[in-house]
């Protein structure tokens, strides 16, 4: 489909092209959802999530601001879900710079304010699926990662993007213990990083991104398990080798590099065939998990010929 691989990163800097592509995709995806997608999803009507992806947005009702900001996995601020909301206020997010290096034409330290003046901030209502089998719908504000990569000038030898979270134990108390091998690292294949669904979020609900959600700059890759969407990014490296992401380095049997949402690939720890939507209360029914978290139309082509059970 138009959504994906024929998209060149040279094309994304121009706003005209960007808008053009959006319009094109809106039409394509809308049509696809209307015809094929819904039919394919008629397994069990009862606990199927009821949604369409229109353009970039899901039609589902977003979770509340409170839900999104008090239920977080951000081990830099503690392992409890409420810990980040309690502890993340200590983080200084201004000034903030992102080091971009590796296989780029313009390596260096990019000031966040400077980056924000050169990109288009957009609202994206994305489905969010954690590997722990809970999910949310989140109205992010952010810009497509491909815009930032275009600023840095990705060299043709680059195949992967490696991201690093801030390491500042005096402000991130969780980092004082060696629970993970700090700083947190994540990675994407370049075509995943260039995909228009992949954004760098800077806000939610039109407000500045709260610290516990990864302020001031975090990745959001809606078709992958949440831990791929690395928070509070300070370093981006373009490489030709697959980066070793933190959770994979801890337990490669449980966490892979790709970590695409996939109900067909069982996880040793949590069932991935269904999920609990946060906000449904005590008696909410589980929802069926959708392959690529509902973004199959948009991203399945990225993985053509790739054995997803081996490359989980």
């Amino acid at each position, binding site marked *: 489909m138009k959504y994906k691989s024929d998209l060149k990163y040279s094309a994304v800097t121009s706003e005209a092209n960007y808008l053009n592509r959006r319009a094109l995709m809106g039409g394509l995806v809308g049509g696809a959802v209307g015809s094929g997608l819904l039919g394919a999803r008629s397994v069990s009507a009862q606990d199927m999530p009821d949604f369409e992806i229109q353009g970039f947005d899901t039609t589902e009702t977003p979770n509340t601001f409170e839900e999104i900001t008090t239920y977080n996995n951000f081990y830099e601020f503690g*392992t409890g879900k409420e810990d980040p909301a309690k502890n993340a206020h200590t983080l200084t997010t201004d000034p903030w710079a992102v080091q971009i290096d590796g296989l780029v034409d313009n390596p260096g330290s990019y000031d966040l304010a400077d980056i924000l003046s050169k990109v288009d901030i957009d609202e994206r209502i994305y489905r969010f699926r954690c590997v722990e089998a809970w999910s949310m719908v989140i109205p992010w504000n952010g810009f497509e990662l491909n815009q930032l990569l275009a600023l840095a000038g990705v060299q043709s030898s680059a195949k992967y993007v490696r991201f690093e979270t801030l390491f500042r134990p005096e402000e991130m108390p969780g980092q004082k213990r060696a629970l993970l091998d700090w700083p947190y690292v994540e990675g994407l294949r370049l075509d995943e990083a260039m995909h228009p669904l992949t954004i760098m979020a800077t806000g939610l609900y039109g407000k500045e991104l709260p610290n516990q959600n990864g302020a001031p700059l975090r990745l959001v890759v809606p078709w992958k398990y949440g831990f791929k969407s690395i928070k509070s990014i300070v370093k981006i490296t373009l490489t030709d080798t697959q980066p070793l992401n933190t959770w994979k380095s801890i337990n490669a049997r449980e966490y892979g590099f790709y970590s695409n949402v996939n109900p067909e690939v069982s996880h040793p720890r949590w069932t991935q065939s*269904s999920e*609990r939507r946060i906000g449904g209360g*005590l008696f*909410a029914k*589980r929802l069926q998990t959708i392959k690529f978290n509902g973004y199959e139309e948009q991203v399945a082509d990225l993985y053509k010929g790739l054995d997803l059970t081996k490359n989980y």
Partner: protein
Amino acid sequence: MTAQNTFSHLKQTIAQKVNSVLRPLPAWPIYIIALLPPVWMFWSAVNGTLGVDPVKSLEHEMGELGLQVLVAVLAISPLRRFTGISLIKFRRALGIVGFVYIFLHLLIWLILDVQIVSQILTDIIKRPYITIGMAAFVLMIPLFVTSNNLSVRKLGPKWRSLHKLTYPAVILGAVHYVWLVKGWQTEPLVYLAIVLGLLALRFKPKKRSAPQ
């Protein structure tokens, strides 16, 4: 009199005082008091004051509370051995409460969390931390069933051996907690260390030098 003798004399006096206060107290109020936390938690969960994910909160808090009670059960015999304070008469009630809490934890997981029968079975078989959690629960069933005077009389010396199943059950429960969290988190490891410590105390020689 040596310092050591003074100490053990003092210890004995305190233990006797505490025991004489405890002796007239019945064990049954434990059951009444034990009802309060689950009722309160469930009420909070229904009313949305247990956070944005009441299912997990309820499930985790019930499991943790069950583990805490079972740790207390394990602490009773070392407490008597090293301090002379005897809570043995409350132990059965606490054991039953611990079992019921773990049963509630299991029910919350079955009914409110996983919900789907086929998925429940898959989870129990395929996910080791759930397998051992279930094993711990199954080990406790005969203990719950025989926690009454009639069983004690009928089983005789076998009752004591049977109830040593508490040890593997609580170890498995603590390992279940360590395993279910992501990474090596402190809290579950602390529980496991306490459980192993309390069990280790049972194998120590009776005579110990007094602490300085």
